[in-house]
C-alpha cells in the first residue's frame, strides 16, 4: 500500500496529507510538495497537446532512491499524489491506477458532503482512507461533530448526528419538488 497519500487543491495547497510512517511526516510533505513541479509540467504539456479525452492519471512523477511518487489530476485540477515504497514490486501500474480511482471516488464523496466546503482542508483523518484495504467503505456524509453519541438517526445517513441531520434536511428542501 501507499506510504503517503495527498490531495492538493487547485491552488497547490494541501487539502489532505497522510503518511503511514508518522515519525517522518515532514519528509513526505516535502516529497509531495516537490512532486508538484512535475505535476505542473505534465498538466501544462497536456494542455498544449489539446487531447479531447483527458487522461487523469499522470503516471510515475519521479523516482527517488527509496520511493516512487505517482500523480493524478482531476478535471477540476485537484491533484492526488501517492508515494509508494520502491521495494514494493507488487504495485504495478494497474494497481496504482485503481488506487487512484478509489481515492478519486472517496474524494468525490467528501465533496458531496454538504458540510464540507470545497477548498477547505479535509480535517477528518479517515475521510479518504478507503484507499487502504483495511478500512471499510467510508461513510459518505461525515458530520463535523467529532463525537457521535447514540444510535444512528437515519438509516441512509448513519454517520450524522441529530443536529446535522436536521440541517441537512433543511438544506435539501429547495431541491425537492
Amino acid at each position, binding site marked *: 500500500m501507499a506510504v503517503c497519500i495527498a490531495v492538493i487543491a487547485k*491552488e*497547490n*495547497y*494541501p487539502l489532505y*496529507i497522510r503518511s503511514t510512517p508518522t515519525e517522518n*511526516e*515532514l519528509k513526505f*510533505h*516535502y516529497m509531495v*510538495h*516537490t512532486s*508538484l*513541479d*512535475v505535476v505542473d*509540467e505534465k498538466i501544462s504539456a497536456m494542455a498544449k497537446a489539446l487531447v479531447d479525452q483527458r487522461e487523469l492519471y499522470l503516471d510515475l*512523477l*519521479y523516482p*527517488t*532512491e527509496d520511493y516512487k511518487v505517482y500523480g493524478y489530476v482531476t478535471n477540476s485540477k485537484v491533484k492526488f499524489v501517492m508515494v509508494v515504497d520502491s521495494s514494493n514490486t507488487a504495485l504495478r501500474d494497474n494497481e496504482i491506477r485503481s488506487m487512484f480511482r478509489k481515492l478519486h471516488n472517496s474524494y468525490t464523496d467528501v465533496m458531496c458532503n454538504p*458540510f464540507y*466546503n*470545497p*477548498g*477547505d482542508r479535509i480535517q477528518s483523518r479517515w475521510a479518504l482512507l478507503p484507499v487502504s484495504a483495511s478500512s471499510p467503505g467510508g461513510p459518505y456524509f461525515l458530520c463535523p461533530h467529532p463525537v457521535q453519541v447514540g444510535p444512528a438517526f437515519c438509516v441512509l445517513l448513519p454517520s450524522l448526528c441529530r443536529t446535522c441531520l436536521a*440541517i441537512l434536511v433543511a438544506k435539501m428542501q429547495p431541491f425537492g419538488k
Partner: protein
Amino acid sequence: MSPTQWDLPVELCCRPMAFVTLTGLDVVYNAVHRAVWDAFCANRRADRVPISFKVLPGDHEYPKCRPKRTSYEWYIPKGILKTGWMNKHLNLVPALVVVFYELDWDEPQWKEKQSECATRVEIVRQSLQGRNTKVAVVLIQKKTPLPPGEDVIASERAAALCNACELSGKSLFVLPHTDHLVGYIIRLENAFYEHAQTYYYTEIRRVKSHKEFLNKTTHQLLFVRHQFKIAFFSELKQDTQNALKNYRTAYNLVHELRAHETNILEIKTMAGFINYKICRLCFQHNTPLDAIAQFRKHIDLCKKKIGSAELSFEHAAWMSKQFQAFGDLFDEAIKLGLTAIQTQNPGFYYQQAAYYAQERKQLAKSLCNHEASIMYPNPDPLETQTGVLDFYGQRSWRQGILSFDLSDPEKEKVGVLAIQLKERNVAHSEIIITLLSNAVAQFKKYKCPRMKSHLMVQMGEEYYYAKDYTKALKLLDYVMCDYRSEGWWTLLTSILTTALKCSYLMAQLKDYITYSLELLGRASTLKDDQKSRIEKNLINVLMNESPDPEPDCDIFAVKTAQKLWADRISLAGSNIFTIGVQDFVPFVQCKAKFHAPSFHVDVPVEFDIYLKADCPHPIRFSKLCVSFNNQEYNQFCVIEEASKANEVLENPTQGKMCLVPGKTRKLLFKFVAKTEDVGKKIEITSVDLALGNETGRCVVLNWQGGGGDAASSQEALQAARSFKRRPKLPDNEVHWDSIIIQASTMIISRVPNISVHLRHEPPALTNEMYCLVVTVQSHEKTQIRDVKLTAGLKPGQDANLTQKTHVTLHGTELCDESYPALLTDIPVGDLHPGEQLEKMLYVRCGTVGSRMFLVYVSYLINITAEEKEIVCKCHKDETVTIETVFPFDVAVKFVSTKFEHLERVYADIPFLLMTDLLSASPWALTVVSSELQLAPSMTTVDQLESQVDNVVLQTGESASECFCLRCPSLGNVEGGVATGHYIISWKRTSAMENIPVIRTVITLPHVIVENIPLHVNADLPSFGRVRESLPVKYHLQNKTDFVQDVEISVEPSDAFMFSGLKQIRLRILPGTEQEMLYNFYPLMAGYQQLPSLNINLLRFPNFTNQLLRRFIPTSIFVKPQGRLMDDTSIAAA
C-alpha cells in the same frame, strides 16, 4: 589516508590516450626542435589523433619490465588493481618511442652519422628491454625531398639506415624542415598513431594470453584485473566499443568475488571505478539510458554492502561519491549536447549524493563521538612506507593480506580508531552544502522551483548545523515566501522554527520578533505549549529582557547567544521595529471597515478596526493608529494607552487595548470629513499596531490598506464560498470570517433641503421665447447663502441642439445665436428659512424635437457636526424634458380669377394667391399681422393689405388671405418663377405685453408661367334681366408678334336672342386689341348659359375653346322681369 580518499583518481577520470615519447629533441636551445615540438603539442583539437606526447632525453630510463612469469600455479595475487598501474600506462610506458635525428640524404659524412643514429636507437631499445614498445626514427632534413623513386641516393641510404638501426622501412620517417611543418607533423602523428594502436593491440593479446593459466579458486582477483587491463588498453587503442564490453565483463566479475568485511572496501572501490568507466563510455556513445541503467544496477548491487558497522560512514561517503561522480558525468554529457529532462537530470544525483553525505554525517556523529582524552594512535596505522597504498581499496595496516580472518585484532582496532578520529575532522557540512548547491543549480535549469526550494531549505539547515547562522537565515528567509504563498503551513512552520533558532543564536532582534509573530499565528502548526513558550519569549523581548533559549540548540552556541542578548539589552538606541505584515502571517489579524460606502459631509465618517489575536495567551497592545490618504485625518484615529512596560502582563483581559485569543475586538473610530474632500475618496492606507512599549522594545505591525496579510485573501475566498451556518454570537460580537474589508469610502455633499419647482406651458413653439419659471424655496433651518442657479440645456445631448437652443433671463428681447445654451452660476442671493424666490428664464428653441433642460441650484450653509462648524455646499437639480413643435402650418395655393385651381399661371393675366394659416399650437395664438413680400417678378393687381391683423387662433382654427397678382411675361423660365415671402408676426395670446412678437417667414412656392397667343376677356354686367338688353364686349388681345387670323363664331342659345357678328373672320395686328360687341337679350330667367363664343386661331391650333373658357364667363344669372308698376302700387298701398 588523505581526506579526499573518496575522490576518484585522476588517471581514471581522464580520457586515455596513446602515450608516445619523443627523444632527440632539444626544445630548450634548438629553435628548429622547438618549432617541431610546438607543432606537436599546440592546438590539439578534436580532429587531431588522440595521442599524449612527451619529450624525453634519448637515454631516459623507462620503468623496468618484470620478468615474465612462466607459470601462475604458485602465484597468489595480493589485490585487484595496483594503484600505479593506470598511471604507468598513461604516462610512463610509451607505446612508441620516436628518435629525432638531423640528417640529410646528401650528408657528406653519411657513414658516421648513420652509425650515430643507430647507436641512439640502440640505447632506446636497451632501456625498453622486455617491452613491446615500438621505436621509430624521424630524420629532420633541411631540404625538401624529391618525389619518391626519383632520388636514387635517398632510397639507397634509407635502406642502409633501416638496416643499421634494425628498423622496418615503415618506422623511418623524414621531416623536412620547410614551410609546411604542421602538415608534415599531422601526417607524422597519424603514422605514430597507427604504431601505437599496434602496440596496444599486442598488449591486449598479451594480457589475454595469461588467462588460460588462471584458475577460479586462487586467481579470482586476476580475472578482474586482466579484464580491467584489457578494457583499459582498448580505451588507449581508442576502441571504446570493446573497452565498454570488457569493462562490463569486469564489472560482473567484481561482483562475483567473494566479499567479506575485510575486502568489501576493495571490491566496492573497484566496482565504483569500473562503473564510472562504463557510465562514461555510455555517455560518450550517446546512450545515456544505458548509463543510467548501469548506474542504477550498480547502486542496487552495492547499496547493501555496508561492510564494517564501525566504519559505516565510509559506505555513506562512498555512496555519496558514486552519485556525485555520476552527476558530474551526466552534467558533462549535457554540456556536450545531451538533453536532460525535468525528471531525469543531474540534480537528482547531486541531491542523492547530498543525502548520503548527510547520512555520513549522522553516522560519523554517532560513531566518532570519542571522548577528547582518546589520542590519535601512534605510530599512525594509516601511514605506509611509500605513502601510498599498493592496491586500490585496501587497508593500510593489512595490505596484501587476503585472509578473511583478522590476524591481528588489536591492530585492526587501532586502525578503525584512526579512521574514526580522522572522520571527525571532516567538514561534512561543507561537502553537503556543495552538493546541495550543485543540485539547486540543476533543478533551477530544469523547471523544478519547489525542488529547488526544498534543497535550499536543506542547505539552510546545513548552514545552521555548521553554525553559519547568517547564511542559514538568508537561505531560509528566501524560500519561506514560496511555502507561504502556496499555503504549506507544516513546511513553513518547520522552516520558521529553524529560522527562529538562527535568529535567537545571533540575537537578531527584528528577525526574532518577525519569526515569533508568524509562529504564533494561524499559519503555524505548532502545538499550544510551543506557542505559549514563544509568546512568553516574545513578551520578554518586548520588555527588553532576554528570551529563553530555543530547544535543541547547541549548548555552546546558546552561551554565546545569551551573552549577545545581554549586550542587546544594555545597548541604547532605536528599539522600535516596524514590520510590514503583508508578506507574512502574523498572529494578530486586522480588518478595517467603513460603515458605509459613502458618507455625507455633514455626518461623521465612522469605521471599525477589527483585531483578532491567534496566540495562546491574551496580549496587550500599546497603540493603534490608522493612516489615510489625506493625512489630516490621521490624528483623529489613534488609540494610545500610557502604560508602563511591566503592565503588559497585568490585567490582561480587561480594557480595549487587550486582545483575547480567538475573540474579535472591535474599535470604533469617527471623524468629520473636510469639506474639500467632497467628491473624493477617503482611503485607509495603513493600520499600525504597536506591541510593547517605547521604554522597552516596541514592535509596530504595519498593515497596508485595510488589513490583510499573506494568507487572508485565500481565507476570504474560502469564507465567501462557505455556506456553513455560523453559530449565534452575542450582539456585540461578530464572526471574523464575515467581516469584509472596506478600506475606502466616498465623501458626498450634504443632502439639500430646498425645493425647486419649474412652471411652464409645454410644448414650446419653434422660435418663441419660451418662459420657464423657476421657484426655489428654502426649507433649511438657517439662512442659506450664496444661492446660485445654473439653468439651460442639459450638457451631454446632441451637439446640434446646443446650436439651436438659447437661454436668457430677459424675455423682452429676442435672443440670437450669440446667447448660450446653458447659463451658469447666476447669483440669486441669500434665502431665509421658508423664503422662496422666483426666477424667469426664457428659452428659444430653433428646431423641433425634445430637449432636456437642467436647473441646478447650489448654496452654502453653516452646519455643526460633532461640535464643529463647517460650511457645507449643497445643491439640488431638476431636469425637465420639453418638446418643441411648430406653432402653425401654412398652406398656399394659386387660383384663377374664377377661383379655379391653377397648375400654372399665364403671363400678364391676373391670378389669385391664397394663404391658409392652420394653428397647430395647443395654446391660443395671436396673429399680430401678416405681410406679403413679392418677388420682383410678380406685380400686384390691387393693394396688399393684411387681412388677418390681430386674429386670435385657437387650436385647429385657421386664417386665410387672398391676394390678386399678375406675372408679367418673362419668357420661358426653367423651374418656375419665385413668388416671394409670406411673413407672419405672431405670439402666444397668453404672453405678456413686453414679450416680443415672433416673425415667421414662409417662402412661397415657385409658379410656372406660360404665354398664350390670344387673350380674351369679356366685359359684361354682373347679371341680366329678362327682356332687357345685355351688352357684352369681348376684348381680343394679340399677345404674339404676329398678325393673327382669327375666326370667330357665336353659337345661338335658347335663352338668348342676340345681335352682333355671328360669324367673322378677321385679323389682329401684333400687340393690338380687337373689340367685339354683342347685345344679348335674355329670354329666360335663372342661371343661363351664354351663347358660346368660339375662336379659332389659324396659326395656333392648340388654342382651343376649352382654354378660352378659362378666361371668359360661360353663363350669367338672369333675373326675371321687374314689376315696376307693381312696385309703385305696393308703395301706394
